[in-house]
């Protein structure tokens, strides 16, 4: 099949005696053939409504859903050639796991030998070979969810829709199953749209992620872009575990450049981080005197130690130093703000010790303090270092 | 979310109206009867059109029943008061006894606990008449026949199991952690029972008390055998309308309407608690 296009798709729920609910607000997005797309957001953000409109379970209030130029809006779910894994699994209780998985293939009248081979392959992929002859009610939630995934992935439909596909998986299996599923989707060129509230899952699987909030599409981009080029403060403070550190700042003119001063929560200015930006590093009108801005930096781009050539240096006190095996998370109190820094190795900085950290200019992001829109990703380090 | 078509709305409305009519028609008919004379009531075919009269209510309230055979003294208002005393005292006593018991059954596993709880429930299975005859002779021996205390005691057979079993369910629904938290805060078990368990089960207690009140109010056979005229509740008192000169349908209907009123008032007053009781789950945790 060809591209799936959502063109200004809107969903409004009318509930009697209650105000209308705008669940999905003019969402535009394109899913390319063979692409894996994640719809990410917290509950009530409109991601599930969007998925259900694509599936055909919900009517589109306005806008179009098109596949290969054909409008799908009024097509019944069965006529859309979709495979779906439901959040509640929706397995057929009287059928063995094997038959649950094979159900769609048999309905398509595929030869028995081919069906058996495919069931065997997908069962191996999802580690459910040993339960193929059991019945759904006897299985744990994780096993049922893997069966539900197997049933959706074993077919080759135009679009595969997965609703919270991995929320119940056993923690020890998550990493490997994510990797295997991603490999399987890519190798079989399955166009996939999945809904999740878990950004780890979205970032692990998806080629592109649609971050939704309050019915609106906040950003639709690759995982790397969401992390390195967040379109707004919402995405910046949502994506990443831990997410970006955000400093509220005010722009002040001074010297031969502009000065950013960190604001305390009550609105006053604190001098913990004063950043001089020479003229020309960022557009001048972005730094008009007194403009409210926000400065962001991802935790693992913070450098430990003082490297004045790279960017501003902060000193602070370590509030917690948490080694997690393959990474270390530090809480550092600088002035009135807690900064979180992450590194792959270990850091010799016990709680309550003093520490210096450098915020490299090329890792700093600048946002408008009021609208939250991103202004710059990476403040030119070459000029600033001079 | 399914959109409702106009047609399905209409069909649903008609069906609901039919069900409502089926259940409410007898009450409506009795309500009409209470404003009719016996002649109107007995007319064939029955008619919805008649000249309303308040005579039935006047007779009940004044206690003087005019019949063809002369004036009869009836104690309807006294009966109403008896009903009220019996039902409310029975429920009050049951609450005092059943709530700690229900809590114990809900929270503590003790030997024979389930058996005792079931035995109490089984009082509800026994046919009252089976118990009543021996009970009558015991009561005569110890002088409890025709006393409020004796009747309230027997009424416990109705109200106690009901309140115990309903509130037990509510206590079981309260997260144990909430009570544990209160104990760990440093409060003794009695305080935890009174300040945490009882307030949280209050909707259930209110619902149980209302149901028990209605059952006690409607009881007939205990009072018929164990009470004479001055302690009779309305259920038994209504027998007085079956007179030598015929059955006074109008007064019976009026008596019914009057005797529904207290329970109706309680039900409306307790409605808020009943609804809250159903949504207790939302408060938990």
């Amino acid at each position, binding site marked *: 099949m060809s591209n799936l296009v959502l063109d200004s798709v809107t969903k409004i729920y009318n509930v009697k005696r209650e105000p209308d609910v705008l669940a999905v607000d003019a969402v535009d997005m394109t899913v390319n053939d063979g692409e894996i797309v994640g719809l990410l957001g917290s509950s009530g953000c409109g991601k599930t409504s969007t998925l259900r409109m694509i599936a055909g379970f919900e009517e589109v209030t306005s806008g179009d859903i098109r596949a290969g130029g054909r409008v799908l809006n009024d097509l019944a779910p069965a006529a859309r050639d979709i495979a779906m894994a439901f959040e509640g699994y929706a397995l057929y209780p009287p059928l063995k796991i094997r038959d649950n998985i094979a159900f769609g293939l048999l309905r398509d009248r595929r030869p028995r030998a081919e069906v058996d081979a495919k069931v065997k392959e997908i069962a191996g992929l999802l580690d459910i070979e040993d339960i193929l002859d059991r019945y759904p009610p006897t299985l744990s939630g994780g096993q049922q969810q893997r069966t539900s995934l197997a049933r959706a992935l074993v077919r080759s439909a135009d679009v595969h829709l997965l609703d919270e596909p991995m929320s119940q998986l056993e923690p*020890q299996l998550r*990493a490997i199953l994510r990797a295997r599923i991603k490999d399987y989707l890519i190798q079989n060129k399955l166009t996939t749209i999945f809904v999740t509230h878990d950004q*780890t899952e979205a970032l692990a699987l998806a080629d592109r992620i649609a971050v939704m909030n309050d019915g609106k599409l906040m950003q639709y981009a690759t995982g*790397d872009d969401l992390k390195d080029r967040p379109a707004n403060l919402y995405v910046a403070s949502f994506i990443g575990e831990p997410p970006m550190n955000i400093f509220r700042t005010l722009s002040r003119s001074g010297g031969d450049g502009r000065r950013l001063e960190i604001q305390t929560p009550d609105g006053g200015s604190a001098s913990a981080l004063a950043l001089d930006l020479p003229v020309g590093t960022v557009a001048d009108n972005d730094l008009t005197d007194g403009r409210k801005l926000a400065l962001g930096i991802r935790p693992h781009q913070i450098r430990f130690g003082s490297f004045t050539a790279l960017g501003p240096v902060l000193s602070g006190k370590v509030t917690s130093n*948490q080694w997690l095996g393959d990474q270390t998370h530090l*809480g550092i109190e600088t002035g009135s703000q807690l900064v979180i820094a992450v590194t792959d190795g270990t850091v010799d900085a016990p709680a309550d010790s003093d520490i210096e950290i450098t915020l490299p200019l090329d890792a700093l992001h600048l946002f408008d303090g009021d609208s939250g829109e991103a202004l710059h990703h990476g403040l030119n380090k070459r000029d600033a270092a001079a | 979310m399914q959109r409702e078509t106009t047609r399905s709305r209409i069909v649903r409305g008609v069906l609901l109206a039919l069900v409502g009519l089926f259940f409410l028609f007898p009450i409506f008919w009795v309500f009409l009867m209470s404003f009719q004379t016996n002649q109107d009531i007995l007319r064939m075919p029955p008619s919805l059109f008649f000249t309303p009269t308040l005579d039935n209510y006047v007779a009940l309230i004044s206690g003087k029943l005019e019949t063809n055979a002369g004036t009869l003294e009836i104690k309807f208002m006294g009966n109403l008061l008896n009903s009220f005393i019996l039902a409310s005292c029975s429920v009050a006593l049951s609450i005092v006894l059943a709530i700690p018991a229900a809590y114990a059954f809900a929270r503590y596993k003790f030997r024979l606990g389930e058996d005792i709880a079931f035995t109490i429930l089984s009082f509800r299975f026994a046919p009252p008449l089976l118990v009543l005859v021996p009970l009558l002779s015991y009561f005569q021996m110890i002088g409890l026949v025709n006393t409020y205390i004796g009747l309230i005691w027997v009424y416990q057979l109705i109200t106690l199991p009901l309140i115990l079993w309903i509130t037990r369910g509510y206590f079981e629904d309260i997260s144990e952690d*909430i009570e*544990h938290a209160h104990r*760990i805060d440093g409060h003794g078990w009695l305080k935890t029972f009174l300040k945490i368990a009882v307030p949280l089960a209050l909707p259930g207690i209110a619902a149980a008390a209302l149901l028990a009140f209605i059952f006690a109010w409607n009881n007939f056979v205990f009072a018929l055998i164990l009470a004479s005229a001055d302690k009779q509740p309305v259920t038994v008192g209504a027998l007085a309308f079956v007179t030598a000169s015929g059955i006074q349908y109008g007064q019976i209907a009026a008596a019914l309407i009057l005797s529904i009123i207290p329970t109706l008032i309680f039900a409306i007053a307790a409605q808020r608690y009943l609804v809250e009781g159903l949504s207790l789950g939302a408060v938990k945790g």
Partner: protein
Amino acid sequence: MTYLNLDHVTKRFKRETVLDGVSLDVERGETVAIFGPSGAGKTVLLRLIAGVLDPDEGDVRIDGRSVVHEQPEERGLGMAFQNFALYPHMTAFDNIASPLRALGKSETDVRQGVERVAGLLQIDHVLTHLPKALSNGQKQRTSLARSLVRGPKLLLLDDPLRNVDAKLRYEMRIELPRLLKQTDATVLYVTQDYKEAMALGDRIAVLDENRFAQIDTPATIYRHPATTKVARLLGDPTINLKPTRLGVDGNGASVELFGQTFPLEVEPVDAVDCLVGIRPEHIKVSMTETENGQPAELDAVTPLNVRSVLLLKTPDGGEFLASCSEAEAARFPRGHRQVWLTIAPEHLLAFDAESGERLGQRSAGGPAP
């Protein structure tokens, strides 16, 4: 000095043994994370210490005194619950005030105490609200405030971050150590999340199948897990475990893995079937052929927080997970490609194939001395 001592505590429900003779010593002021999969008995253990359940066997001592015969209200400890266990009919203020009122404090003292701890947890502005009007995060802080308000010497935290969203959970994980330090309390922290256990525990007690599988510092447990079960419970992505045979010769022990022989730093034991474990971050993946590099196929790259997970297949059909930094992962495009992987032998762990216990360790888990 030992403040809390669990001495061979056993608890059964009907026929089922939930805790099987568990022992644990917690030092004064120490934070011990009780970590294990669901159903391991963690919550029951806390309730035995709190006194809302009684042990069938064994003793619980707080500061040297046996408390098994004391009622919960006599034990003077603080506890926060996974489901918050707030009193739904009382305001946040009255919830937090409850332990102070139990002590019979004057209303002035109560107000001061509540306001102090509410300030610490930043919930001053919601004190007049009923629990149902609080967000999950505020409920969780109210519940923590209630457990802290009396300044208890022993604090039991039963998976307090379980029911808050990911972001808040992360923030609290960073914030809690400082808060706990301010209280000076001895803390038992129950969690199902190994990251929380490693971040918050001075030591971790791994509870598995009704006993402690290992009690030690996070670093020791992570680097030298006592059993395969413990090794698999800590770490995301999960440790790679491959069946092989441990050989012993004059030079010491070694294992064979995809045709290469790796020396092992374990005390010589007899040759046994074993599982060799290698953590994903200790497998180095290179796009060019390296010395001693094992050729493999890179099948998928899945980002995981600030790192990336690599799914590798060796020619013998073996499957390995490796992990690398986000920057390194940027080199690997979508789809299959040929890579070479290298393993540093010092990071290899060997476990007995049958018992699952790590080979060559001097003492196999059990209670700390």
